[in-house]
């Protein structure tokens, strides 16, 4: 009996290597296999940008409503993402109130280049997606002496930030991202802008896909930035993917610091304005 068991075990051991190729795909099929297509839309908010994913374009609009309203920004964007790097460009177009009437002008051209890599997560989870790189902006010739919230978006100037962003697929349908930045900027030296300022900031984002409708998700973001016209802000967005490769988002940005008066601007606004946000993203 023992000899029979040993014989069966030896025979199984001898067969085992032969069984593995049989369970795997045929050699011809394995040669054709490609890496899984990445999620075309990596969760992003207002300050946390889309890092990775696939190539795509976007158009967004943001408008301040309320007593301090009237400033309206339309942003055109494009991104190229490879396995190891991601490049993005954005150009905001501003429409705003001035004493002489409504004016329109080009904002600052944004360029972002990030190196992407993965590392095991800290808490025993899956891989965390890291990105490190530079975001830079310069003025292509416009003079929109205004701002929406970000100090470096419209007001003529130039500068660059070193950015680090981590995307954590925390659970099924739940993504968390954090972004940090530090940099130097120059701007036209008219109040409330300083001619030269350093920037340091951090933002955190939570993206939750609704269990009952996988095309729909909620995005919440909180960001702190100094020096900035909006040092502390909250963003709440609803996202909807009507078809594969298309994402629509809408929501509001709450300028908490402006409401509390913690802003370099002299105007007393109080709790009387917020910014509505709509955008459409396409991934190829």
């Amino acid at each position, binding site marked *: 009996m023992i000899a029979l068991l040993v014989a069966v075990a030896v025979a199984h051991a001898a067969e085992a290597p032969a069984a593995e190729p049989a369970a795997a795909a045929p050699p011809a099929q394995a040669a054709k296999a490609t890496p899984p297509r990445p999620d075309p839309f990596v969760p992003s908010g207002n300050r946390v940008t889309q890092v990775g994913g696939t190539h795509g374009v976007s158009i967004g609009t943001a408008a*301040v409503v309320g007593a*301090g*309203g*009237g*400033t309206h920004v339309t942003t055109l964007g494009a991104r190229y993402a490879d396995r190891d790097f991601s490049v993005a460009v954005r150009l905001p177009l501003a429409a*705003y*109130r*001035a*004493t*002489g009437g409504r004016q329109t002008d080009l904002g600052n051209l944004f360029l972002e280049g990030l190196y992407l890599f993965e590392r095991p997560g800290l808490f025993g989870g899956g891989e965390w997606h890291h990105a490190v790189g530079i975001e830079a902006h310069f003025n292509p010739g416009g*003079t929109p*002496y*205004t*701002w*929406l919230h970000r100090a470096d978006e419209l007001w003529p100037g130039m500068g660059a930030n070193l950015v680090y962003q981590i995307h954590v697929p925390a659970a099924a349908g739940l993504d968390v991202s954090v972004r940090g930045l530090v940099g130097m900027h120059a701007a*036209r*030296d*008219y*109040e*409330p802008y300083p001619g030269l300022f350093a920037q340091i900031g951090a933002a955190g984002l939570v993206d939750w896909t609704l269990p009952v409708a996988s095309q729909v998700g909620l995005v919440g973001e909180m960001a702190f930035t*100094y*020096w*900035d016209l909006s*040092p502390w802000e909250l963003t709440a967005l609803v996202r909807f993917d009507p078809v594969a490769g298309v994402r629509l988002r809408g929501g509001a940005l709450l300028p908490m*610091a402006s409401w509390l*008066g*913690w*802003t*370099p*601007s*002299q*105007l007393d606004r109080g709790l009387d304005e917020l910014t509505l946000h709509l955008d459409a993203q396409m991934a190829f």
Partner: protein
Amino acid sequence: MRHIVLPLLLIACRAEPETGETWISPVDGKSDVLLDVPLRVHVGGLQLPPDYPLGDDFIRVVDIDRGGFVEGRILLEGDVVSFVPDGGWEPGRRYVWSVGELPTLERGPEHFFPESLYGEALFATTHELEVLEIVLHHDSLVCAVLSRDLDAITDTVTATLDDHPVELGPVMLHHEVEWLADAPPELLEQSVSVACFPELEAPDGASLRLWWGEAPSFQARLEGADLRDVLIGRRRAR
């Protein structure tokens, strides 16, 4: 952590923009203003974009003799805002002008003019000389601020002190620039003179009436003052 966050928040909070010295030209009360000289408001440290819209009523000028606003252009050059009247000033007229609030744009360049600039100022294109003010400079020297610049005294000057005729003695003429040497030179082109009477002894609180040529008499109760402060006030300077 609190030691880092609190200063950052405090720095992020609003701070009044710094403004330097302010001056207006011509000086309040000036007569004999040239017909082609614009009104000027100098604000040290004024930082506004070159094409910043100041608004048509930022400087308003009223023709006192004829009534109505004077049409003109408002120009921003560096830290000087000018009012250039269409067709120049009319001869033999008196005008009053004032600086308004700088228009505040939502989410735009911000600047707040100091209070010293606000208020009305007079000027005239007449050649008449008027006594604008009499002060007891440093509590001892009687001085009269005149409405235009004089190189020499050609008129008869007489006075009464508490309604009693007094001998004025020699009159010392000074130019405004002697007290305002730190003003931008181009703003002192439209300046005035100050006449001082070193031999006139007048106590603080006395009533002095002065006749200068054919100009209407000017009466003042003497009060100690610094001439520089008086002139700075007429220049809306600080």
